[in-house]
């Protein structure tokens, strides 16, 4: 596989996030923090305007823009920083951009920047991924 610096892909990864989907993520991941699924706890105890999605739901969903492009098996690293909370009703778009392609120990490695934005264009997650494109 060949990638050029500056190339990018965009994917709609979450559409109108439902509370049900957040509950699904809680069950799948094992993170049952009530901040994510219990409106009473989130508002009255934690002082939040409403529940918020697990940061890892946004990051997990965003991974698709990378794996659909380079392949699941090619991934060497994936990381993310949670910039702002994601809440029910949010729609997320993830973009991956090739920042560098370099040869390391005989392998071609691509460095990708990942950025996920909500329906208002605000960044909710910034991340990076490394993909192994094969022998140099």
């Amino acid at each position, binding site marked *: 596989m060949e990638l050029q610096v500056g190339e990018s892909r965009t994917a709609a*990864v*979450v559409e109108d996030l439902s509370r049900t*989907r957040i509950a*699904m*993520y809680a*069950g*799948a*991941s*094992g*993170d*049952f*923090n*009530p901040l994510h699924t219990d409106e009473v*706890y989130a508002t009255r*105890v*934690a002082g939040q305007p409403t529940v918020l999605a*697990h*940061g*890892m*739901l946004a*990051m*997990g*969903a965003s*991974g*698709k823009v*990378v*794996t*659909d492009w380079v*392949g*699941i*098996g090619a*991934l*060497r*690293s*994936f*990381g*993310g*920083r*949670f910039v702002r909370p994601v809440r029910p009703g949010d729609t997320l778009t993830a973009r991956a951009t090739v920042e560098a392609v370099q040869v390391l120990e005989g392998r071609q490695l691509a460095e990708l920047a990942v950025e996920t934005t909500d329906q208002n264009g605000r960044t909710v997650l910034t991340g990076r991924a490394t993909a192994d494109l094969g022998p140099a």
Partner: protein
Amino acid sequence: MTDFRFPVEASQVLAFARAIGDENPAYTDPSSREAVELGAIPAPPTFAMSAAHFEPDYPLRPRQGRPWPESADAGEAHWLHAEQHFEYRRPMVVGDVLDVVQRPGRTWDKASRGGGTLRFEELVTEYRDTRTGEQVVVARFVRVLPVTSGEGE
């Protein structure tokens, strides 16, 4: 040395892929192209998070005989997940049984915008193949908690 054991199972991978909205057939169909290439159904890149199910003392899960939510009034209540990083030595696949070992990583402080101090703490988790001992994934969890609050926060 092993903190706990994490079996990578097909039904859990299916549920996790659905929860993150990734309908790539690789995560459910052993005859899909990527599953065939990898020799088994692969786990999504962030699937290691679900090892929490197997962590005996994982705090974010209700347990018999304990108040829930446990940390509502405790000092631990207000930390937030700030960052998460994974390094993959090879793809994690269904059928893997992994030994999980956790250790504290770095700690650092940063001034918050409101003039207070934020403390960042790292937790490093290694996932090793029980059969070969080889590292499969190394994860770095970073959480942030306010240690002093500034004005205007």
